[in-house]
């Protein structure tokens, strides 16, 4: 497997400038000879499709929803980072770069992260130009706030709906290109395979979700911007349709899967209420700016009305353990701390599965200090949402929160050009692995999606296209026929099992295994157990699944069955990676490797590499390759947020 990262030589701050000059260009008149297929229409996909369309390429864009605007980027609440230093508080490109590398616990690729910080300012400019209504101060200037894990105010936001506004901005640029005929948009189309022709990714196979039609699409390059795989846990903050299928199909066609065990658990979600729950709802991390997190010091107080528990009987555990960052400690640390106090029996809220899994997020101090109006202005929609879901008023009683799966740092391996090891297959946004290492900082996902789509991929794809020249294969070529029949066979197989259990049943089961053994804290025995259970569950799936209806119609259960089938295979890969990475780093916490105070203990000598997995057939074990992480600029230190 060729894992040449293609990181340019030269000093870190000049790499991207220099690389841009070295990239080949496609003559403006020749751009129309190329077709680029973009799968996914979230921040990364929509911004890439729009930008490539503006350049003059023919773009076909696909999404499974009924509109590109519904991609799950829409749900990001808190904000987007940029190294503008508008607040004069000492921010810089280097600081954003360093914070991101450190936040990722030194498991990200240095040059990619520096580039991300370099283009961060241009993203804000672009969004403002599109009319994105960022929050402003009375003087008309852009407002900022500080966000989990940062000591400067560099986060731009649009109420609690930043992801929505940024996506609507990218969507408006995409719409303009659709109206101009430069981009053709295919809604309600799900990608089910990648076509590799003569060693290059040259097409995709989709299923039309309204008619069931399986179709082949040929292009000169393929972009996957298909998001993360958090739904392997069944319960997560992801949308119901989020899935690993596109990335996993690419993996089975030869693309390396990097660091699949790096998943992020978000500290501020609404706790689980019961067995029939379908989704966990995130409360923006920005709440941690003004809310104080605590649990009762004494177990006996856990069932009391929180307002009756005196100050001296409360344990503000983040403030106690991390005095300098307090309630703003990074996500992995905050999440694990919440789990610890709940495991000690000091959790609050209803008993689910034998334990109270919740901690208080208290705004009483902030309301006293700033007045209720300011809190309404800052977080009103979040408080409303909380009330609607729990039936509780968080202005008069503390919210209850608990960690939930939120983001996946792992993804398809890409080089500095965001191209996978399969030439012509580019991977953007959450679907790739490159920028967040073992833990993503708050307000960085939006930044990365848009950086990839607006300011990186348009350059690097042009380079690839200029090198290979135009020439997409016909859709009746052998590679297309083979991929199309693979897809059709699988659909038929799913429909023909005729068992008793629904696709959702198997999804819930795999979710339970993953949360139990490969969730917030992992150990060898647990992961080994999971690796025994998963193949058994997969066998049960292929013997006892029942998918109602037919292929030739809108069939939500057939869609779900295909996604669950891939989760059932992918889960195993994730566990293998979690077992193989015998260290703790960022969101990957192996209980065997921790300091006395419970902090994650990295093993840089053995594990400062990207683990890249190669598929070697359904009956063979995947092979782990390494991309060594070379730090030219930054010295690896132990993260300390105390």
């Amino acid at each position: 497997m060729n894992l040449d990262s293609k990181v340019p030589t030269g000093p870190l701050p000049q790499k991207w400038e220099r690389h841009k000059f070295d990239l080949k260009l496609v003559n403006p008149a020749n751009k129309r000879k190329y077709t680029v297929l973009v799968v996914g229409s979230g921040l990364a996909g929509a911004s890439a499709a729009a930008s490539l369309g503006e350049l003059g390429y023919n773009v076909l864009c696909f999404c499974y929803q009924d509109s590109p605007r519904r991609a799950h980027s829409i749900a990001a609440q808190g904000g987007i980072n940029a190294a503008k230093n508008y607040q004069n508080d000492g921010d810089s490109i280097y600081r954003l770069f360093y914070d991101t590398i450190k936040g990722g616990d030194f498991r990200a690729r240095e040059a990619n992260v520096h580039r991300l910080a370099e283009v961060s300012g241009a993203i804000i400019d672009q969004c403002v130009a599109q009319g994105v209504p960022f929050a402003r101060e009375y003087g008309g200037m852009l407002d900022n706030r500080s966000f989990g894990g940062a000591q400067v105010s560099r986060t731009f936001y649009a109420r609690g709906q930043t992801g929505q506004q940024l996506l609507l901005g990218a969507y408006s640029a995409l719409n303009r290109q659709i109206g101009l005929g430069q981009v053709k948009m295919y809604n309600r189309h799900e990608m089910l395979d990648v076509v590799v022709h003569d060693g290059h990714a040259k097409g995709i196979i989709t299923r039309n979700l309204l008619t069931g039609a399986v179709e082949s699409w040929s292009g000169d390059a393929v972009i996957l911007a298909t998001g993360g795989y958090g739904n392997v846990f069944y319960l997560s903050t992801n949308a119901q349709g989020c899935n690993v299928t596109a990335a996993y199909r690419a993996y089975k066609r030869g693309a390396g899967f990097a660091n699949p065990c790096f998943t992020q658990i978000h500290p501020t979600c609404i706790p689980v209420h019961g067995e029939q729950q379908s989704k966990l709802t995130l409360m923006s991390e920005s709440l941690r700016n003004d809310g104080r997190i605590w649990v009762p010091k004494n177990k006996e107080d856990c069932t009391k009305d929180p307002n009756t528990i005196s100050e001296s009987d409360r344990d503000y555990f983040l403030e106690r353990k991390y005095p300098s960052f307090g309630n703003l400690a990074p996500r992995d640390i905050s999440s694990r701390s919440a789990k610890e106090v709940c495991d000690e029996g000091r959790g609050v809220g209803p008993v689910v599965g034998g334990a109270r899994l919740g901690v208080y997020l208290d705004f009483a101090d902030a309301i006293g200090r700033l007045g209720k109006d300011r809190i309404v202005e800052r977080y009103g929609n979040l408080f409303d949402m909380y009330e609607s879901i729990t039936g509780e008023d968080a202005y008069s009683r503390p919210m209850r929160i608990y960690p939930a799966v939120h983001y996946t740092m792992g993804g398809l391996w890409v080089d500095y050009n965001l191209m996978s090891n399969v030439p012509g297959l580019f991977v953007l946004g959450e679907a790739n692995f490159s920028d967040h290492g073992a833990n993503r900082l708050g307000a960085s996902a939006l930044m990365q999606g848009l950086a990839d789509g607006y300011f990186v991929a348009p350059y690097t794809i042009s380079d690839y296209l200029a090198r290979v020249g135009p020439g997409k294969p016909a859709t009746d070529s052998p590679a297309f026929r083979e991929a199309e029949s693979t897809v059709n066979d699988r659909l038929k197989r799913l429909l023909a099992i005729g068992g008793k259990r629904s696709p959702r049943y198997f999804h819930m089961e795999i979710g339970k295994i993953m949360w139990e053994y490969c969730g917030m804290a992992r150990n060898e025995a647990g992961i080994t157990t999971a690796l025994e259970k998963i193949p058994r569950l997969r066998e049960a799936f292929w013997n006892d699944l029942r998918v109602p209806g037919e292929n030739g119609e809108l069939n939500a259960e057939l869609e779900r069955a295909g996604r669950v089938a891939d989760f059932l295979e992918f889960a195993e890969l994730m566990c293998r990676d979690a077992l193989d990475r015998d260290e703790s780093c960022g969101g990957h916490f192996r209980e065997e490797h921790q300091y006395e105070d419970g902090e994650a203990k990295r093993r840089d000598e053995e594990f400062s590499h990207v683990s890249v997995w190669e598929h070697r057939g359904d009956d063979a074990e995947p092979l782990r390759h390494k991309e060594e992480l070379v730090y030219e600029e930054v010295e690896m230190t132990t993260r300390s947020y105390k």
Partner: protein
Amino acid sequence: MKLYLRIWRQKNAQSEGRMVDYELDDVSEDNSFLEMLDILNEQLISRGEEPVAFDHDCREGICGMCSLTINGTPHGPQRLNTVCQLHMRKFRDGQTITIEPFRARPFPVMKDLVVDRTPFETIQQAGGFVTVNTGQALDGNTVPIPKTVADKAMDAAACIGCGACVAACKNGSAMLFTAAKASQLNMVPQGKPEKDRRVLNMVRTMDEAGFGNCTNFGECEAVCPKGISLDFIAKMNRDYATASLKQLLGTPV
């Protein structure tokens, strides 16, 4: 709780639909409305029947995909809320609940409770953007935008494009949606240069798609999960009148 459900079933866009009755036991009041439908569907699958098709995705009230009319009201009984954020504690034990798709002529039913809202896409493709390519932008603080203007633009931009406004309107009008989209951009300095073209193109496309006219009943505002104000319709009408007048006088727009 026990529920009596009356649900619109329709095989596909070509066939006729009808209401079908179902009974559901043991629903927790903490469940969301869509989780209640999940439970029904699991039971239907285990009985060998076709589950009910409905659109949904984020289940946190922001993607705008869910589109159910509950007891005659788009998104159901709770104001400023989407179906996916509606919880069963808003209903009572033994209640009969009628569930239909968003109904409007430009939104044909594709299956059961799933409708096609493509005309919303077409309206935005006609003008719901600022003509600016990637890379052309000035520094974000070059043009100050008064906080009041930015806040008002955000009020309009909060629209999630669900289509409840159309479904609630007796005329099937898309004025609230189109006004939100056009006004957001027409208010901010970045959107001003093509303000006239935008409103003319978006309104024309809206009319061509077969949406009805606005007769100021305000049902749209009442059901809007994001509380988009009727004021934006007034603003769009003013923008439209100005642009039309310019056109009438021969001024290029």
